[in-house]
């Protein structure tokens, strides 16, 4: 079990830079998830580690070895593909046993190992069948089994769950997580699905446009996003952003956005002053941190309901606030009433939960003693 280190890694496809000079340590025995939208460079990074893609520059260390020029088969890594990539002409037993052949195990040993893996992955009934006869979930498990059977140093997963239906996906998430914990193998999992990342990762690496936006635990990423991108990417529905200008009137701070004026609480105002924040900012607030009132209340702002989406115990409510819009997540019971489209409603922000972002750099402005 080893750690993987990337130093100044750059991957280019022709003139297009897919991965731009990143530095990363993927810890030994940990489940690291690389998360980001399509084209952010996460898959290119993964493939560079495997040796399937040649980076333009940079160094890749697997354990203590510099593997830049080693062929994929010499790196002792295994990969599970989105499409499973099972050998269609061989049955499951042979698919699993195939990679053991060159290691010159005796026939008995091969059988034993295959059976072990098959049992662990609940595949022992299927050993005689062919890939085409198996369901997606089963094929998925065979792909995983094939990766694990030769006990690689690193396990790479390239969006393995994206072809599965919702129920199966949940099952496999737990499955993979438990498997990794049991085996304690360094695992790198690539996905664009942030709920998957949150569920699986010991550590999440958020990428966009070839650069690492933030690394941290799921908690850290969610609660302390470093910039606008990370804040907006994580969370469902995503964080609301209200651009505006910080404006002082009669000793009070307001956030002014064309027509709307949000009175900022004294606590928030004090923090902003401390940091010397003036001018244009972007205020970020998560949908679950907005309070709704059927009638005007202290410090609340008027808005109109545009859309209501019921979700289990909650409503997702779209608000039109003239110069900006908000998505709000509210527990049905707490709300207390049935929201109607075009209904007038008042909202207030839980300001201790608000984030402030610099408009130019999109970085979050750290307001001290945030506490969570």
């Amino acid at each position, binding site marked *: 079990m080893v750690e993987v280190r990337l130093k100044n890694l750059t991957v280019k496809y022709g003139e297009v830079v897919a991965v731009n000079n990143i530095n990363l340590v993927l810890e030994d025995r940990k489940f690291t998830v690389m998360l980001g939208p399509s084209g952010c460079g996460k898959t290119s990074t993964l493939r560079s580690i495997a040796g399937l893609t040649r980076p333009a520059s940079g160094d890749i260390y697997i354990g203590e070895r*510099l593997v*830049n*020029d*080693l*062929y994929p088969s010499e790196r002792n890594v295994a990969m599970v593909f989105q499409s499973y990539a099972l050998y269609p002409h061989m049955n499951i037993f042979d698919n699993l046993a195939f990679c053991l052949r060159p290691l010159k195990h005796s026939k008995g040993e091969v059988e034993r190992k295959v059976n072990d893996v098959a049992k662990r992955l609940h595949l022992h009934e299927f050993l005689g069948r062919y890939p085409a006869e198996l369901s997606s979930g089963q094929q998925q498990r065979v792909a995983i089994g094939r990766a694990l059977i030769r006990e690689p140093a690193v396990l790479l997963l390239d969006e393995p769950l994206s072809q599965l239906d919702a129920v199966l996906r949940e099952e496999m998430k737990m499955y993979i997580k438990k498997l990794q914990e049991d085996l304690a193998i360094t695992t790198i999992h690539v996905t664009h699905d942030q709920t998957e990342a949150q569920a699986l990762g010991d550590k999440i690496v958020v990428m966009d446009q070839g650069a690492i936006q933030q690394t941290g635990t799921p908690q850290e990423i969610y609660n302390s996003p470093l910039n606008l991108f990370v804040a907006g990417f994580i969370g469902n529905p995503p964080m609301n952003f209200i651009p505006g200008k910080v404006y002082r009137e009669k000793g009070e701070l307001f956030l002014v956005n064309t027509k709307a004026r949000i009175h900022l609480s004294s606590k928030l105002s004090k923090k902003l002053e401390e940091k010397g924040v003036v001018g244009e900012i972007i205020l970020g607030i998560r949908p679950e941190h907005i309070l709704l009132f059927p009638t005007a209340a202290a410090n609340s702002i008027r808005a109109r309901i545009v859309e209501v989406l019921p979700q289990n115990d909650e409503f997702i409510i779209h608000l039109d606030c003239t110069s900006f819009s908000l998505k709000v997540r509210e527990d049905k019971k707490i709300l207390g009433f049935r929201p109607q489209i075009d209904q007038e409603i008042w909202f207030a922000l839980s300001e201790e939960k608000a984030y402030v972002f610099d408009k130019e750099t999109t970085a979050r402005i750290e307001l001290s003693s945030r506490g969570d």
Partner: protein
Amino acid sequence: MKAKMRRSLVSGTRMAAVILVTIVFAFPLYWLFATSLKTRVQIFTLPPKFIFIPTLENYIQVVNSWFMGNLLNSFLVAAVSTVFSIAVGSLAAYGFSRHPLKGSDNILFWILSLRMLPPIAIVLPLYVLFRTLHLLDTHLALILIYSIFNISFTVWFMKGFFDEIPRDIEESAMLDGYGPLQVFYKVALPLVRPGLMATAIFCLIQTLIEFLIALILTNRIAVTATVGMAKFQVLGVEWGQITAAAAIFILPIIVFTVLVRNQLIRGMAFGGLR
């Protein structure tokens, strides 16, 4: 680093092998063109000259000889046969694709066999028949025979292209009120235009390079380029002129080949080139 060197060595060796193989296949072509640019003396020397001062005298002689007439015959026959075959064959191809008959499979089989039969089997009886009809040594005879092969090829080749048109497009045209003829003319045909081009080029190439049938059916008037080239040999192997004639002849064929490079597999599978 050892690994880096090894990688470069492996990929370097591979490229070297690729280039070597390419040279093996390209060299005779080069030699053809080179010989055509040599004087008689330069051709018949030992050791063979790789560097020499080129001359156009062979080309001039060929251009002034009967060969140009042969070339014209070849292109004329090829062009007419191709146009005719595509016009007729595409209709049938469309039929097999969209309006199949009972026993279409058998008919298609028969048509493909025609394409792949030894030409001698077809030429022989037709020679006898043409002889009776005084059609020997005429362009018409050649056009008729070549069209057998070209139509067969066209039917098979174009059927594939028609098959690829999604049925939805035609069905929606029919819902709009178009009759079957118009659907063919306005919808299907425009969509297979690239296929028609490729078919035309294959037919042209295949007809131009044909030898045996032309050898048998022509004598003086309708002699094609391939047969005409053989005549240079009769006068005591004039390599300079033969290669010059060959060079003039194959240049358009090479151009055509480059044009259809994407359809090569399909074209070759459905009728190879004799």
